[in-house]
């Protein structure tokens, strides 16, 4: 935009005026109606059992369905609202992840692991509110748009070999859901910056100021997500109420230097940390545009139970009073509120949330939450009912098998008791797996092992939907509901596959690394990850906590697999060309020779020559050609004789050439 400076100045002025007037109107409107664009920023911190700290940033921007401002928004990013309007997105989630979520150590049952633990790379799914035949077109356009928005190669998801349309196993959305992953996408700051641009304060103020790039990218796991939900409020469906949730989940190691292992007791002491030590920054007050700005510290159920045991706490002690009496850890800032989870179902204990409001802090008095452990505590996270892992079987470039193994965790027994069911109890497991077409999975070879015994598939599969892959057109997809007995110790699924061949230009530049099979999603519809807090006014103000209260299936992703395929030797095109040319030349040469040759004709010619009725010129020519080809003129000689004669001549010539070559080599080089 090359506007003259005066124009830009005028524009600025106009914008400021507009802004002023709009804030005024909004300010007046707040009392009457809640239809206002809102921005909330929240941060959840949680110590993890393996000496790490989880930081979960949650930013929510909501745009109410109103057309008071036309296409303009006060807080809501315009790019996103245009996206939603254009492609009629009902719901969408885009995640950029680096590292793996460790389900065993960091938990597999809570909301964070079910909703915010994602497979490495990029995952995108979207539900469209368009007629079914337009869904694919919308998806393709959406991938390109997002690719431009987030500086990532999401546009590769456009190809029909890369995405699939799960019916029910991933999320209930018949027909209008599209799902695609890019396991190899590298995630870096160039993806984070556009994501931050969507926030009203970017990373200049508020909680997002904590997002120090080096410390985030040094983390053990980070997943940056964008979740969009739109609700058509009015009947025309033209104006959409959009909620944009932006989350960033980071697992950080607060102990920069590993404590010496010489003192065993000390080594089990959890490292103490503060916001400034793990992020290198402090919070200088909230983002002024945010409606609420809170920091939560979560102590999960296992930890609380352990603390109680260690310190002989009365259960009511923590709940009723505060922290002065805390002996096993110390907080540098007093929390504004303590929330105790209402454990309706789980008999394990309840987790605690300490709430800190950032509003009262400012530049002069920055907020820096610190946690100092005083006694070693060892606890473990709550696990999903079955721990799932997936691996490849077999070796070689021809075929192999994918195995998904499910192993029961300790939780299973207790939850079984909690469910109160006895023998007839069943555990449902949803499996959703997409396999690229070059691994040709034979779905008939599905084998099921329950408790180390081979079982008939029909006995345990409640529902199955298989979409076999089409070469170079669509990936294979398998959706399955397994119905396992509650006391199951282990279950395993195997699927055999053949490795396909790719066309030469379909190979990526690093073809010899192998090819990825994206993660499978395994969910447990019988189990819901949610935290229930006592109903309170303040809860409504916090979108993150209300999100935590929502019931969501326990979901876990398996590992990405790497399948080595046969690759041509790209480094030797010359050899390939040479060999092919030689073979072709030999083949066509001999074929042509055979086709062209007429034996009878040749014999007649020879006879005529023998009769000596040839012209002078032709005789001369033939003699010349005979000379050139180095053949003796005498036709009457026996073959052996002639060959020996040729031999001596040939030998002489070869010797001459060799001598010449040696002389050349010696004198001229």
């Amino acid at each position, binding site marked *: 935009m090359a506007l003259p400076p005066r124009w830009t100045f005028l524009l600025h002025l106009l914008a400021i005026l507009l802004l002023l007037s709009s804030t005024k109107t909004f300010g007046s409107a707040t009392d009457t109606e809640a239809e206002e664009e809102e921005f909330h920023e929240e941060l959840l911190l949680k110590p993890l059992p393996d000496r790490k700290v989880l930081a979960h940033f949650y930013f929510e921007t909501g745009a109410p369905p109103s057309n008071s401002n036309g296409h303009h928004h006060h807080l809501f990013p315009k790019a996103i609202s245009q996206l939603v309007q254009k492609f009629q997105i009902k719901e969408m989630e885009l995640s950029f992840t680096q590292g793996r979520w460790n389900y065993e150590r960091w938990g597999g049952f809570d909301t964070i692991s079910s909703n915010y633990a994602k497979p490495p790379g990029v995952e995108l799914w979207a539900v469209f509110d368009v007629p079914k035949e337009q869904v694919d077109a919308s998806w393709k356009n959406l991938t390109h748009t997002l690719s431009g928005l987030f500086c990532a190669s999401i546009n590769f998801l456009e190809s029909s070999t890369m995405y699939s349309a799960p019916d029910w196993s991933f999320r209930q959305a018949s027909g209008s859901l599209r799902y695609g992953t890019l396991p190899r996408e590298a995630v870096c700051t160039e993806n984070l910056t556009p994501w931050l641009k969507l926030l009203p304060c970017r990373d200049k103020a508020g909680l997002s100021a904590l997002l120090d790039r080096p410390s985030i990218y040094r983390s053990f796991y980070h997943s940056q997500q964008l979740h969009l939900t739109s609700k058509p409020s009015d009947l025309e469906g033209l104006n959409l109420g959009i909620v944009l949730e932006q989350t960033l989940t980071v697992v950080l190691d607060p102990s920069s230097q590993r404590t010496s292992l010489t003192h065993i007791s000390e080594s089990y002491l959890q490292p103490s940390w503060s916001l400034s030590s793990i992020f290198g920054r402090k919070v200088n007050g909230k983002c002024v545009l945010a409606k609420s700005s809170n920091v939560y510290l979560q102590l999960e159920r296992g930890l609380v139970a352990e603390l109680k045991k260690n310190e002989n706490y009365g259960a009511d002690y923590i709940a009723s009073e505060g922290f002065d009496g805390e002996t096993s850890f110390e907080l540098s800032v007093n929390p504004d509120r303590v929330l105790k989870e209402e454990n309706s179902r789980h008999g394990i204990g309840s987790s605690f949330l300490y709430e800190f409001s950032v509003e009262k802090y400012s530049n002069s008095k920055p907020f820096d939450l610190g946690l100092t452990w005083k006694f070693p505590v060892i606890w*473990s996270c709550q696990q999903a009912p079955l721990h799932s892992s997936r691996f*490849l079987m077999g*070796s070689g470039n021809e075929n192999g098998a994918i195995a998904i193994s499910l192993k029961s965790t300790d939780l299973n027994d207790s939850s079984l008791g909690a469910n109160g069911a006895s023998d007839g109890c069943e555990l449902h497991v949803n499996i959703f797996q997409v396999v690229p077409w070059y691994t040709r999975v034979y779905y008939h070879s599905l084998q099921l092992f329950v408790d*180390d015994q081979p079982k008939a598939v029909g006995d345990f599969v409640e529902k199955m939907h298989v979409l076999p892959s089409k070469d170079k057109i669509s990936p294979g997809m398998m959706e399955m509901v397994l119905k396992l007995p509650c006391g199951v110790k282990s279950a395993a699924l195997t699927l055999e596959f053949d490795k396909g061949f790719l066309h030469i230009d379909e190979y990526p530049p690093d*073809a010899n690394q192998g090819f990825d099979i994206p993660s499978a999603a395994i969910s447990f519809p019988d189990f819901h990850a949610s935290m229930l807090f006592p109903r309170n006014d303040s809860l409504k103000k916090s979108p993150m906590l209300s999100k935590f209260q929502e019931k969501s299936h326990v979901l876990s992703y398996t590992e*990405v697999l790497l399948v080595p395929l046969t690759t041509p030797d790209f480094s030797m095109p010359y050899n390939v060309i040479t060999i092919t040319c030689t073979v072709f030349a030999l083949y066509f040469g001999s074929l042509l020779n055979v086709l062209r040759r007429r034996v009878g004709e040749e014999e007649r010619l020879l006879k005529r020559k023998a009769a000596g009725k040839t012209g002078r010129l032709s005789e001369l020519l033939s003699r010349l050609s005979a000379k050139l080809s180095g053949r003796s003129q005498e036709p009457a000689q026996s073959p052996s004789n002639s060959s020996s004669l040729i031999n001596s001549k040939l030998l002489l010539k070869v010797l001459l050439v060799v001598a010449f070559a040696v002389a050349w080599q010696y004198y001229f080089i």
Partner: protein
Amino acid sequence: MPKTKTEAETETETPKMKPRPIVRLGIFLISHSLLVSVVCCTAGVLALLLLPLLAKNTYISENALMPGSASSMISNRDISEANRLANDLSDLNLEPQDTAAMESRRILTKYMSDLGAEVSYHKFHPKPNQFHPLHFFSGPDSTSTVENFSCSAYVVNTVGIIRAPRGDGKEAIVLVTPYKFGKSGLAETLSLSIAYTVFSLLSRVTWLAKDIVWFVADSQYGEYAPVEAWLRDYHTPVFTGLGTLNADTCVKIDDLYVLERKPIAQSKISDGFRRAGTMAAALILKVADRNELLEDTLTIYAEASNGQMPNLDLINAVNYLAVHRQGLRVKVEKFFTLLDSRWLEILGEIFELLGKVARSLNPGWKFGISAADYIEGSATLASSLYYQALGIPTGPHGAFRDFQVDAITLEISPKVSSHNKARHNEFLLRGGRLVEGVIRSINNLLEKFHQSFFLYLLTSPSKFVSVGVYMIAFALLVAPLPLVAASLYAEAYQLDLGVKNTKSTPTATASDALGITFRSWKWLYAAKEVFLIHVWGAAVLLLPYFICQVPNCSPTSSTVIWIFLSMLSLLIFYFIVGSPYTHVSISQPEKKGEWAILKSVTISAVFIGLLLMSVVNFATAEIGALLLVPMCLMAQPLKLDIKAGKLRSFLRAICNLVLAFVAFPPAAYFVVKTIFEGFDSINVGEFWNWMESLWAWNSATYIYMGMVHLPCWVLCLHVLLHSC
């Protein structure tokens, strides 16, 4: 040769039709087959002897490896930790073996999980060596039959996995240290502490992109078996068998888990099998018991089953880091007896002289190497050829190659052991830095090893002969075979033609024509005999399966039984099938050609067999060709030579006898053994043991022996003893 026949016929009436040049060349070569075969064979042997001269310096082909570009990060703290582990482990040596084994496993597990690694146990029971003729070549089979076994036969390996902090877990690097739990020596503990040093470093580095698997193999039943069992379970797990294995009431194993739960371990030790993606490469780390006099030495073992080698880049990277970064002396295996052999020295001096002459002619020609280098190179080359030909892996790395994982064994031997603390730490530091560097290089790799050679022979750790060069020697050696076969065949028919031409009268009847067609199919009888002998060879291969069933059989008696049974079966074959020549009444001149045709078909069969073998295992084919080709080419009935009574034919007869003796597999084995080890160590049973190791390791050489070498030898003997 129908062409020659038509030529001969048309010759009389019309001027000769010019045959095509390629045909003429063929005819020329066939008609001079004697000269060609002598030239080719000598050239072949000479080319083999020249290989050390033609060896190229190795270079790192894959740029992504970047060995040694990062400075080492191993600190003294890692080393002191490793020393503490070693002390803890060696303290246990006083206790009885069972408790010591369990306790040492526990200590190791504790150390591993303190580093934040995921630890698991892998249990298996070693399988006895059984010859399964049907399982040959079937590869790693998952049909492990669980028989009743005693609890003490359990082998428990310990596996620690470090997950790369920011990696996606698709690939893994494996580090293997064989360790005898409970009865470990000093060297094994040293190798464990080197591995621990690296492991503890890797648990906190940020650059890791691939998971690291540290596999401590319980080597009380050999080093290969645990690695192989683990790899089999890793790649082809048996879902049904696990239950029986776990439900086993072996108290000791259960004790182990009870022990594990007691301490406040950070992570639970799972009894489940833990995996970490596709394996990119594997290093087997050992510390030798022997001590070197001069400096710390690293020996690289690379030969896997059937002469497969890991990618040369892996060896290059190790060699580069060991020589240029850690200052270790790097060795590969060689035949030490060849080092002071006189003829090799003379040969080396000749080549040196030739090189000097060449250089004086043109300074640009640099093919000469010094005699000492030549001897060294050929000793290494010979051992490289021998171990590839044997087809038996030279260490646990062979198990990895079966699953297409590049792996080598690094055996570090320290300088004269002193109980000097500083010296000990320095050794740990060097070993640790070497392994760290190699792992870091492999970690840099985006793709799997594919850039450099897979088919090569080493003449020194930094010199190699690639497939393009060493194929020449083999090709030259094998080239005369089809020529000689063709010339023998043609000779036999020209003999026939000569007969026909003399009585070329108009009274040539239909019976004569019938005779011609009959004779032209004569080679079928020879082919039948050759085929039958090959069938016999296959039968001989299967005999050990039955001999194994005989209880209390010493190797010597087994050998004797084997040879006896083989001869018996050969005799039975002769009696049942009968000599093929009894079917046709043969006139005297045809009888002359009979052995020639048999020899021609034999040679063709050998040619095909050697070519096939060169694809499977080149080194076997090369050594086999060295033995077989002269014998096949020379073979001529002794009767003829004796009848001739000339000195030349007498010499030929002696040559034939010597070659026939040397090519007999047991004789060849013992001759080689006496050359290398002297007369005293000769024992007939050793041959049985040797063959047993061949079939136990599923070596293709075993099949080659039965299907190519032995039939060829028998057929040549048949030609020698032919009654003509």
